[in-house]
């Protein structure tokens, strides 16, 4: 039995998940990675995407729009700007997120917002 890692997912409003997990897949801004026990300590920003949490008996999926992750040997925490459970994320919610991002892009029009828009669209394409 592999060692478990403490995983927390918190949004500004509340703490969404706090579990002991085997493995967590995290959409880092430089690429996806998996955090397991004894991972090297790393702090990375996130791009919009799905977080998969593998606990002993089930797999859970959450969608985050951004934020950052802090991984150390025993704990992993993700601080998300906005986080949705799989059930909350309907097509309508997804469209709204994309719309908002596009509006913001039109307003600011930087590379960062353009990248955010395309990342968001890719991540939400198969809902």
């Amino acid at each position, binding site marked *: 039995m592999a060692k478990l890692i403490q995983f927390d997912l918190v949004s500004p409003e509340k*703490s969404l998940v706090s579990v002991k997990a085997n493995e967590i897949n995290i959409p880092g801004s430089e690429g996806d990675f998996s955090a397991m026990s004894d991972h090297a*300590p790393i702090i990375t920003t996130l791009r919009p995407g799905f977080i998969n949490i593998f606990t002993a008996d089930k797999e859970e999926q959450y969608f985050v729009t951004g934020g950052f992750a802090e991984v*150390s040997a025993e704990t992993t925490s993700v601080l998300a700007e906005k986080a949705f459970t799989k059930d909350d994320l309907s097509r309508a919610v997804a469209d709204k997120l994309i719309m908002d991002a596009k509006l913001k892009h039109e307003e600011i029009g930087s590379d960062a917002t353009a990248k955010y828009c395309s990342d968001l669209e890719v991540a939400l394409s198969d809902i």
Partner: protein
Amino acid sequence: MPSLKDLKNRIESVKSTRKITKAMQMVAAAKLRRAQEAAVSGRPYSDRFDSVMSGLTASMGVDSGPPLLIGTGADTNHLLIVMTAERGLCGGFNSNIAKLAKLKASKLISEGKSVKILTVGKKGRDSLKREFGKYFVGHVDLTEMKGASYSYAVEVASNILNRFDSSEFDVATIYYSRFESVMSQIPTEKQLIPPVFQASTESTAYDYEPSEEEILIDLLPQSITAQIFRALLENGASEQGARMSAMDSATRNAGEMIDKLIIQYNRSRQAVITNELIEIISGAEAL
């Protein structure tokens, strides 16, 4: 000496005041529970954010970093963000925050520094208007806000950041009330830009991806939003707590007043009866 009718009217009016304050107290109690839950569940996010930011800044060294982190190097233009409630009748809640901000503003002005004030919430604006009205640069209205929502924090933060980008100020300080308990809310001042982090005690050496600098640029605005959101939440809970205890004592005072008035009413009624009796008796004796 008020007449019986006057006394009766007063008793009635105090009674209806008591009903109102009682109702307000109960509404505040119900809202307080929600606001308190929100404040408590919002704490992990901002605490963690703070600890990560302090680790980051420690690893960045003192002198390098984006201006949002190390400041503009000057200390002449100050922005005070005064966060209060939209509504009154909550004891010293609004005036305590305003008092703290006033103190700081007067101190800065006497030091010859320029002061700008951004008010969030109507009550703070009202109480600062007379003395410091000419320093107002903006106002964020919270009337539509039901419970603290993150989008308001985003709005306030982007307002502040835009001002920083157009170099309207060097130092930003935020004023709000920290929720300690129902009985005690502590008006707090916190420097937002450049941020002051508690020295981190963690020794873990993190890898940063992308580089520290890029993460900082990405996270600093978010960290400011997070702190403002925290202030909104704490304020929300404090407001309801303050209102609840203020209305509780108002209700109690009204009760005491009613008791006193009833005694006075009964005494004067008795005096009238005694008077009448004396008149009747002395009339009968005269015959």
